[in-house]
């Protein structure tokens, strides 16, 4: 009985907070838009009994999904999101790995402090931090003022409202998600393995390539997924830091929903985004599972 309740809690959680909202979104994505409250049709009218349910299901169709394939805005937005998410994941890895490596190699008494510094940004609201980047990257922002002052540039750079700003924003925001799993993997790494590799004829660089890197792979994979998955559907960063040229599916979704008030199309966009995300999430789960099996 106790076991049943223990299992029931997460399932109830998933049911209430994931499955029911998803079914609602799925239903809306199959509906037609209408100028009404709520702005879609059909709605389920149980007072008419069996006929009402039949009428409700008859009103559902795949029209909105067909529409997504007809207007090239959508698939371009999906592709562009995939591209931006992939590039920023690679950038985050390139910056995050050396930081994690440095943390794992630092003296014991420093590590807690360094870890604290990595987590520290989470203490401030995400939105405020993104606004702060607007202040840094704008034409009259701190970055341009600084670069003008040291004389590297003559006229201010346009960074804000470009894809560059979006990359900066994503890398900045998700860097801790990359650093922490890699740090955990490197921290567990036994230092005598590196010595053994050197003892057997490896140079420092070779030992890193043949021992450190393969053994931190689970951390790298976990970090990449933790960055890639939220970056793909990211909405706040491209809409605040990106320009009109920045095409990301999160932004398209927001515009469909709030600007066009086309809930059915917005829902269809969300359903397709979820299907795209399911692939990396399944891969991620499998990586975690393999990792656990290897640890046993």
């Amino acid at each position, binding site marked *: 009985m106790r076991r049943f309740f223990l299992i029931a809690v997460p399932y109830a959680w998933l049911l209430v907070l994931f499955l029911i909202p998803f079914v609602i979104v799925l239903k809306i994505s199959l509906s037609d838009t209408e100028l009404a409250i709520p702005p879609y049709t059909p709605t389920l009218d149980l007072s008419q009994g069996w006929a009402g349910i039949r009428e409700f299901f008859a009103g559902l169709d795949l029209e909105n999904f067909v529409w997504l394939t007809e207007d090239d805005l959508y698939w371009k937005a999906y592709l562009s999101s995939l591209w931006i998410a992939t590039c920023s994941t690679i950038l985050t890895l390139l910056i995050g790995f050396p930081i994690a490596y440095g943390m794992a190699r630092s003296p014991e008494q420093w590590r807690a402090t360094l870890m604290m510094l990595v987590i520290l940004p989470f203490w401030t609201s995400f939105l405020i931090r993104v606004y702060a980047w607007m202040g840094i990257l704008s034409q009259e922002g701190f970055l341009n003022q600084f670069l003008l002052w040291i004389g590297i540039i003559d006229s201010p750079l346009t960074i804000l409202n470009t894809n560059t700003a979006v990359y900066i924003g994503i890398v900045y925001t998700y860097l801790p998600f990359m650093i922490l799993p890699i740090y955990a993997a490197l921290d567990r790494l*036994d230092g*005598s*393995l590196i*010595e*053994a*590799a*050197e*003892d*057997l*004829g*490896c*140079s420092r660089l*070779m030992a890193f390539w*043949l*021992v450190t890197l*393969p*053994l931190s792979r689970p951390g790298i994979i976990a970090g990449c997924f933790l960055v890639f998955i939220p970056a793909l559907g990211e909405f706040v960063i491209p809409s605040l830091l990106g320009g009109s040229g920045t095409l990301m599916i999160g932004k398209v979704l927001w515009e469909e929903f709030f600007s066009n008030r086309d809930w059915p199309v917005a829902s269809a966009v969300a359903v397709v985004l979820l299907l795209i995300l399911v692939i990396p999430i399944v891969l991620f789960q499998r990586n975690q599972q393999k990792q656990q099996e*290897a640890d046993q």
Partner: protein
Amino acid sequence: MDASAFAPWEDPQAQPLIRFKNVTKSFGTFTAIDDLSLDIFEKEFFALLGPSGCGKTTMMRMLAGFETPTSGVIELAGQDIAPVPPNQRAVNMMFQSYALFPHLSIWDNIAFGLKRDKMPKLDLQERVEAMLKLTRLEQFARRKPHQISGGQRQRVALARSLAKAPKLLLLDEPLGALDKKLRQDTQFELMDIQETTGTTFVIVTHDQEEAMTVASRVAVMDHGRIIQADTPDRIYESPNSVYVADFIGDVNIIQGQANPGEGDGYRLFWTEGQPPLIANSTKSFSAGQTCHLAIRPEKVTISAERPEDAANAVRGKVLDIAYLGNLSTYHVELPNGLVIKAQTANTRRISRRSFTWEDPVWLSWTATAGVLLAN
């Protein structure tokens, strides 16, 4: 291999494989190795023995190249090895934790060093197979380190470090993680492998029994210095100091004043109202010099009556009996309160034991049974 046949340290002409010349190693204010000089010869099985923190691991790490001496020179085959990085030394190490690469199979672990040498593929396969055969690991070649037992991992580590046929193999507490029975079997295996391959082995251990079993010579270390380096039998039979006598095996120490007698015999005045003890010594002591008689428990005879012809005999009372199965150790309290251990083989069944607690007994030993030590 018989001790008289292999003793290059006795030969003044022999060239050592490793030579420590006045080596000092400091970590900040802590001196790990203190002005140490030592020769180790080819094909030796040399044991560094000492309590933790005595500097034995530091010596090994300097040989492997992970530490450099603060001053002094370490030579390998006549060459100063200080400028040679660890990956270019003809020295391999078997780590205490084994340090097997968890992401590689047993086969790839053993092949790791050979691949770095760009060994041709066929030779490499042959060498790895030979190593697997030597350590009886053939059927585990495809497994990962976490899929085999501790004893097998230890053999993989040995195979991996031997694969490159190093001039010198360093073993850092190689058997520390094994249980006693497996450890004893492995000790003999190690000796066989050392003999088969003809490699020079330097082993670091804190287990004196292990050092005595495997080594051709043992160096007893303390506080970064070598107190005595000699063959196991000489370390045991003729220790050069109370520290060595006490560190290796069980020993009784009787303190007193020496007085030269006839020949190389000395009389040791050890307590009021008792006749002096007679002991022979090759080292000379001045009259009245404070010295210590170190005598092993198995060289002390215990009897009910005073033996007729014993050079030394003292009376005492049985305080405690440690029954070890094949042996019994009697703790006998002398009139001055000193407790002496005497060990006898249990040739009779325990029910027919001659002495029990509180029995008055005589302890006796010959003049050559003990060693007189100055400090």
